[in-house]
């Protein structure tokens, strides 16, 4: 009965896609298959999906715009952006690590292995690493760690060392610890429960790294307070920095201007779209995240 044609199907263009993508396009709306989907703790879930060759061209800091199923009686009418957490080009897989916060992410969490997931991407501008650098510092908290994780891989590939300052409520929420470790990053965990995630302590750690000449560049995501410290120290010490930002999105492609954030460029305030002009921006130009 699959061929039945409804008199007034309200939403045919739904979760699937039958469109041929012209060769020149860089972005695809594709149906992936969920390979595994596990809770990491009681808030975060880790999803592995199959990926097409075009999807696998994704770079750290870039994201996919995901059509989440609904977990309630309603329907979701926007996609949800999720940055890529790991890229397995040989295995043809992509990984996402996300926090369940609202309807979209809770809906996403209902997907079972074997089910399809419609993703759009890769989107946006990712991180860059200069192979002339010796050592970079990544500083993240919460879901920010998911976005920063692939940086270590990229730095490693470019022969650059990584110090990863990972901030969380407590050890249990120190996500991606192993992933950073595997790459050989030197890890500095800071947590709320022992007070080590205090902004003063983080500043102290950063200053030490600067003093030790182990901070050729800064990378941050996921906390406005941490970003502000990095921005200030970066400016004071002339250290370049990159930040991955978030904003509510509709299209994810550029035209709608829903996802704007404020930046300061040469003393002037400008709005930029997180989806196409970011999500990765120059840390000195960002105002707040």
């Amino acid at each position, binding site marked *: 009965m699959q061929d039945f*044609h409804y008199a*007034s*199907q*309200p*939403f*045919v*263009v*739904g979760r699937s*896609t*039958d*469109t041929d*993508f*012209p060769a*020149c*396009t*860089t*972005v*695809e*709306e594709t149906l992936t298959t969920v390979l595994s989907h596990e809770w990491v703790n009681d808030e975060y879930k880790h999803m592995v999906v199959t990926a097409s060759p075009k999807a696998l061209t994704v770079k750290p800091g870039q994201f996919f715009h995901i*059509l989440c199923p609904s977990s309630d009686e*309603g*329907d*979701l*009418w*926007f*996609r949800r952006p999720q940055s890529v957490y790991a890229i397995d080009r040989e295995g043809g897989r992509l990984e996402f690590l996300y926090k369940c916060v609202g309807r979209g992410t809770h809906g996403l969490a209902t997907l079972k292995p074997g089910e399809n997931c419609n993703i*759009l991407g890769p989107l946006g501008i990712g991180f860059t690493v200069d192979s002339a650098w010796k050592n970079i510092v990544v500083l993240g908290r919460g879901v920010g760690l998911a976005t920063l994780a692939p940086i270590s891989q990229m730095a490693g590939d470019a022969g650059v060392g990584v110090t990863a300052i990972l901030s969380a409520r407590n050890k249990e929420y120190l996500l991606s610890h192993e992933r950073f470790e595997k790459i050989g990053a030197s890890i500095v965990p800071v947590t709320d429960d022992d007070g080590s995630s205090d902004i003063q302590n983080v500043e102290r750690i950063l200053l030490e790294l600067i003093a030790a000449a182990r901070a050729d560049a800064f990378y941050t995501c996921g906390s406005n307070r941490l970003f502000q410290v990095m921005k200030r120290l970066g400016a004071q010490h002339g250290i370049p920095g990159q930040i991955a930002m978030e*904003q*509510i999105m*509709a*299209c*994810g*492609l*550029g*035209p*709608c*201007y*829903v996802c*704007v*954030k404020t930046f300061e460029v040469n003393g002037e305030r400008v*709005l930029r779209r997180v989806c*196409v002009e970011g999500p990765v921006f120059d840390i000195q130009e960002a105002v707040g995240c």
Partner: protein
Amino acid sequence: MLDLSVRIGQVELQNPVMPASGAFSTEYASVIDINRLGALVAKTVSRNFRAGNPPPRAAEVEGGMINSIGLPTKGLQYFLDAQLPDYKQYSPPLVASISAEDADDFQAMARDINVPGVDVIEINISCPTRKPGGGNFALHAEHAHDIVTRVRAETDKPIWAKLSPNAGEIVDVAMAAEDAGADALTVANTILAMKINVNTFRPALGNKIGGMSGPAVKPIVLRMVYQISKAVSVPIIGCGGISNAEDVIEYMLAGASAVEIGYVNFRNPTAMISIINGLEDWCNKRGIRRIADLTGAVRDGDMETDTYVAAAQGF
């Protein structure tokens, strides 16, 4: 051979599917072949730079979304210098969309955008979330008449007047726009709407209220297209809540000659291509040779008006 082409006055489109202003840019070329579209409709442009409204600028609602983008623009000069050449890399006709501070400015905008490369001028007199000082001239017939008259005086290009579903008497506004020389009517812009976050007690949009679009508004805008098509003779471009090929057919039956598609591009960026493919299939399956024949083909002339007779029949 199936003929999907439609004609809006002097402009011939290879098929009736166009993006709606503000829901499209050449950035879509990264995901679809935009040369397949009936026409390209640019984001509304004003004379000077506008930042737009404070975020959050969009929220999802049942059946679609509300937005309060607020017509951000880099201004007319940037459009002419950078965006126009960008659009002209592609083959479909270009529809430029303009907005203005006041009637004089609208007239001047029409003059200044009357350049080669612009194939059609869509006048956005209906943005519901522009800040005061510019505005919604589509709420009343006199204002619409005035703006269209002034634009008409400046250009020989086709003018499409984009109407507002927030008008109480949209048919009067439509007739005024036709009378003043509009070559076609785009029906319609977004419907004013609101969402409040019940956790934070805050309006979901920075601008408090915004314009609603998406499948939820389709029956409302379709009704307007139907009513207007009975009252005017210029072509109508249906716009509101189209998400599949059958929605396009429904709009055409109601009286539209072509359609513009907004929201669904955000949910499925490949939607317009699927819809064009779907139209082809739909027509082929039913033996329809010229899609243009569907315009106004709703069978409403011989309906039973006697309640008792109607209620005795099957339905």
